């Protein structure tokens, strides 16, 4: 058996030279696939922020805006603070709409994204 060395030299002798590059990377686990199931097989999707958090943020931002504007109603900071209130209110309202539109069933949500997984397969006959 000849093994081509990394440098490109052709080793003519039947000696098997096991080079680091040629070492088997796949461990023996292939014989017992159930024993070495990786815990990361199902990738958990990033959890979207919940509605309650946004509502809290809105409330806090309104407080801050009122405080900032109490000092100086026409400063840039005051305007920026109210802009933040507006942005967060919009985000809160979108979150509410999304929640109302559905997507409260986590299995349905998962299956709409991954219809080929075992849990989500549907059969016609």
């Amino acid at each position: 058996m000849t093994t081509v060395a990394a440098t490109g030299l052709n080793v003519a002798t039947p000696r098997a030279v096991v080079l680091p590059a040629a070492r088997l990377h796949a461990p023996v686990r292939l014989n017992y696939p159930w024993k070495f199931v990786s815990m990361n097989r199902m990738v958990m999707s990033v959890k979207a922020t919940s509605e309650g958090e946004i509502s809290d943020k809105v409330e806090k931002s309104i407080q801050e805006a009122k405080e900032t504007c109490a000092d100086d109603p026409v400063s840039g900071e005051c305007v920026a603070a109210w802009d933040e209130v507006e942005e967060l209110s919009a985000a809160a309202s979108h979150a509410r709409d999304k929640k109302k539109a559905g997507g409260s069933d986590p299995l349905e949500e998962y299956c709409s994204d991954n219809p080929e997984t075992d849990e989500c397969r549907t059969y016609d006959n």
Partner: protein
Amino acid sequence: MAVSTIYSTQALNSTHFLTSSPSSTSSSSKQVFFYRRQTNRRFNTIITCAAQQTVVIGLAADSGCGKSTFMRRLTSVFGGAAEPPKGGNPDSNTLISDMTTVICLDDYHSLDRTGRKEKGVTALDPRANDFDLMYEQVKALKSGIAVEKPIYNHVTGLLDAPELIQPPKILVIEGLHPMFDERVRDLLDFSIYLDISNEVKFAWKIQRDMAERGHSLESIKASIEARKPDFDAFIDPQKQYADAVIEVLPTQLIPDDNEGKVLRVRLIMKEGVKYFSPVYLFDEGSTISWIPCGRKLTCSYPGINFNYQPDSYFDNEVSVVEMDGQFDRLDELIYVESHLSNLSTKFYGEVTQQMLKHADFPGSNNGTGLFQTIVGLKIRDLYEQLIANKATAPSEAAKA
């Protein structure tokens, strides 16, 4: 859609190399040359593929982006539901369907929320936005190159890791400043501005925010007042560049109405825009006032008023179709549709069908829904005309 024609009289069985040289023109049709290595004669086979032409639509609307009604109506006209990219950041603002991709321009904020607070600028201020990046990425997508677009997270107020956006057939850029930068403006094939009057905006924001704890009438009012100077300075001037403006005003049918439920909506369409023929009532260029309610149609209070006239808007020739009132029943809708001309529908009743499909969307019973749907159909028409014009496949077989 890529159209390619291959001219070849001989099988390409000998060694050949191909070079693709994108043409220097902006239509970016790639030409592929096949050379057959033969000493005496050389057959050049030229394959020209018209690369995918991305149509870019700009939509300017206040108060952030997201799953707004107009976008849903627009994507529905083209078919398919628009959803956020699967498996990506759940707070992504992007919507993707088969034909369209909607990009929220908030993603091009150069300052995140803390940055803006430190500098004391609002999101409306051009200083908070990176127009260079916006221009480069929109240009790239228009030419058919995928981009890594940043994500602005509206909840945390931070700029998240970028997401990959593939060039779609129709790209919609939605946000506060689609027409602000001149270079981006030139890339747009069609632009729309949603002009909500102050009274209506106030009424809508009350409806939206009163359910939110922490908000009161004063805080909503203060928020609108604080943003007004920046809005008037930076966002409002974009109206003059838009090809279509949907203006929403309080109704004139109900005296002293402050509920904002019945609306007067005007669709202002610029004349002379390529591939865009304005909608009209009765005859183009005439002035007509029309109340459809009467013997053929019984409407409930306050009824429906239509108006059509040519006008001048910021030194541009425009045609204005106006609707005041609301629809109560299906037959009112179909009756009105049958009298409007140049709707670019593919079959009789398409506007009604689209409105009914989304009867739960806000504005489905008044001019906002009607004109948004009509603009959606106009955009489809514009897209088809653009594609038909650019999908030329000049194929030549040159024998040297």
